[in-house]
């Protein structure tokens, strides 16, 4: 017995576990699928909420289940707001532009650029707002999460950093990823406590440059093979070379990017986890190329084979992957975490639904 006046329980170990099972999720998914079909998919907001409630309550932090308190009605209202205030006006404007502007005119080009700027900023905004909504509906021991920054500022960075990544042929990618992660995670709060993100950039660039150069060399090799082969109009040009060329080009051009991306991402996940702390508690992820590839490819198959209806199973697997590969170190003192004073958004992540930004 503790003689502290508040009498806290003896602290369970700092673990995050996902105890959900596909078998228990299946009836929820089946019912959702049925109801989506008969309601022209308007039920999806409520269905999504049911899935989240399941995933959240099966996620245990320090042996205590999380709780999801969002509702389908909130998501539906968020959707209506996004549809009528954002999407419909955008659709009308772009239709008008296509109608009245010559497709090859500078006016149309200017309009297109402007339109993409708006769309990309809205996507950035949607990501931030969806996260804010979900965190505000997530509670552990009644204490809620939140986002303390502004979605507008995030949107500006999102837009500029993506543009920079395109201009630099991808070389700004790690910088973009880290800046955006630092924004999202560093502005996340649990109760009144902020997460902190302090990360160096060079470890990411070490991996990234290897990935970029590797992919580039493979691509160049494919180009060289193609050039040599197409100038070679003597007896070498027989059927088996054509076959080999096809497969060689396919491997050289289309394999490196997904492989490099997965390899980079595995490092990135670990790097980001290491950079994050809250109240002196630190995190460590052990993602690797092979286990991440397994997760991504099986999730991909699940979604494709179920025509998208199986997405919740993929989400469960992602949750579990994350929990299984995460270790948390340090001492957390729960009584130091006070309830957040931030106001929670009243309607759900309409924009994110509109742009089909998956997440959970």
């Amino acid at each position, binding site marked *: 017995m503790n003689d502290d006046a508040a009498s*806290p*329980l003896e602290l369970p170990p700092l673990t995050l576990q996902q105890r959900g099972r596909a078998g228990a999720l299946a009836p929820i998914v089946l019912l959702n699928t049925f109801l989506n079909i008969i309601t022209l998919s308007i*039920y999806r907001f409520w269905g999504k909420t049911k899935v989240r409630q399941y995933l959240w309550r099966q996620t245990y932090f320090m042996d205590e289940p999380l709780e999801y308190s969002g509702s389908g009605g909130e998501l*539906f209202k968020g959707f209506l707001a996004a549809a009528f205030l954002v999407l419909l006006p955008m659709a009308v404007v772009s239709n008008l532009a296509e*109608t009245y502007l010559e497709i090859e005119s500078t006016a149309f080009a200017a309009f297109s650029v402007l339109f993409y700027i708006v769309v990309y900023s809205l996507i950035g905004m949607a990501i931030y707002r969806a996260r804010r909504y979900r965190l505000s509906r997530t509670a552990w021991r*009644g204490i809620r999460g939140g986002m303390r920054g502004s979605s507008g500022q995030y949107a500006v960075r999102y837009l500029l950093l993506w543009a920079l990544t395109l201009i630099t042929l991808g070389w700004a990618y790690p910088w973009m990823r880290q800046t955006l992660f630092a924004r999202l995670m560093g502005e996340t709060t649990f109760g009144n406590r902020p997460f902190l993100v302090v990360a160096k950039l060079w470890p990411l660039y070490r991996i990234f440059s290897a990935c970029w150069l590797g992919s580039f060399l493979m691509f160049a090799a494919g180009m060289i093979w193609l050039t040599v082969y197409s100038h070679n109009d003597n007896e070498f040009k027989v059927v088996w070379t054509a076959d080999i060329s096809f497969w060689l080009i396919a491997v050289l051009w289309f394999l490196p990017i997904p492989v490099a991306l997965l390899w980079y991402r595995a490092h990135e996940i670990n790097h980001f986890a290491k950079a994050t702390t809250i109240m002196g508690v630190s995190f460590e992820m052990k993602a690797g190329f092979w286990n991440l590839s397994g997760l991504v490819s099986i999730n991909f198959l699940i979604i494709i084979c179920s025509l998208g209806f199986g997405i919740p199973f993929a989400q469960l697997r992602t949750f579990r992957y994350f929990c299984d590969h995460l270790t948390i170190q340090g001492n957390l003192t729960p*009584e130091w975490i006070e309830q957040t004073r931030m106001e929670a958004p009243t309607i759900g992540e309409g924009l994110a639904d509109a742009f089909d930004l998956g997440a959970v």
Partner: protein
Amino acid sequence: MAGAYDGSYSDGRTAAMHEVVAQARGDGLHINSKTGDFEEHWRYGDVRAIDPPRSDIPFRLTSQTMPDARLSVNSAEFVADLRHQAPQLFLTGLAQPTLRRNIALIILALCALGLLLWQGMPHLSAPLAHLVPAQWAQNIGETYRSRIISGAPVCNDASGTAALAVMTRRLTNSLSPPLNVDVIVADKAQVNAFALPGGHIVIMRGLLEKAGSSDEVAAILAHEIGHVSHRHPLQMGIHVAGIGMMVDLFTGEGSSLMEMAGEVGGLLLLLNYSRDMEREADAYGRKLMGTAGLSTGAMARFFARLKPEGKKGGNGAENGGGYFSSHPPLEERIDAATKLETGQSVLNNADWMALKNICG
């Protein structure tokens, strides 16, 4: 006497967890700290279950008076006690007010969508059709035309084409402002004619074969010109596009099933003018025939020719082809068309024969 059960409790101010004893008594839920330093009394009217009781997670409760506080008890006996005292916490199925409200909301949303589509769109599409620039309408019309004749050759016998031009000019000469129409004959056996956006009109070979005189063809052509003049094809095009947009908006893009249904439904709708539109086109056609000094009874003769065959056709259409299925009842149209009966032939016999053989 209600049993006392071990549970854990957090007050919602901090994440600290306290060991408590919970009792479901007659006057409410009593929560007593095991160390004796606090006690809570929640009236049943304020108590809410976080999730329905489940075997795989502890039963979690909160109170509306302290919505961030959580009581968590892992005991089936406690749940049974509480069920006895406060059955309203355990409502299932349609007894739950939130479920009833959600169902009402979904039905309302479906009705609103339906109303918007079937009532709103026609009102919107008519004024919008007059805003579409001619060039754009032309392009759309060409796309539709190639889809409708779906690969069938366009008949281009020189003297037949000349005869068709004579007929078209005879009808449109008197119009002011002039109306741009582009009439072609497609080599298809259907007894059919279409008006499409941008003044494109397609007559099928089957209709020429069926017609007993050049005036009957002229009457059909005048009717189609009526559709063009009233911009019916564009109106329907906008209608269909609008429905597609609304359905996309509501059901979320990417559901390929919905998209397929939309494609098929869209094409059907496109060729299915409302009865009011047909009446407008009929009236316009009669006026055009009269102004051109042609027999306004020709329309009636053509319909009379269709009638016996239609009686045989079992698909509910008034003719074998199905195209006239949306038209006002044949009797009514024959009546309306026979009221005015004067005029001479639009083409001389040689030209009429040339037109009949336009497909060679």
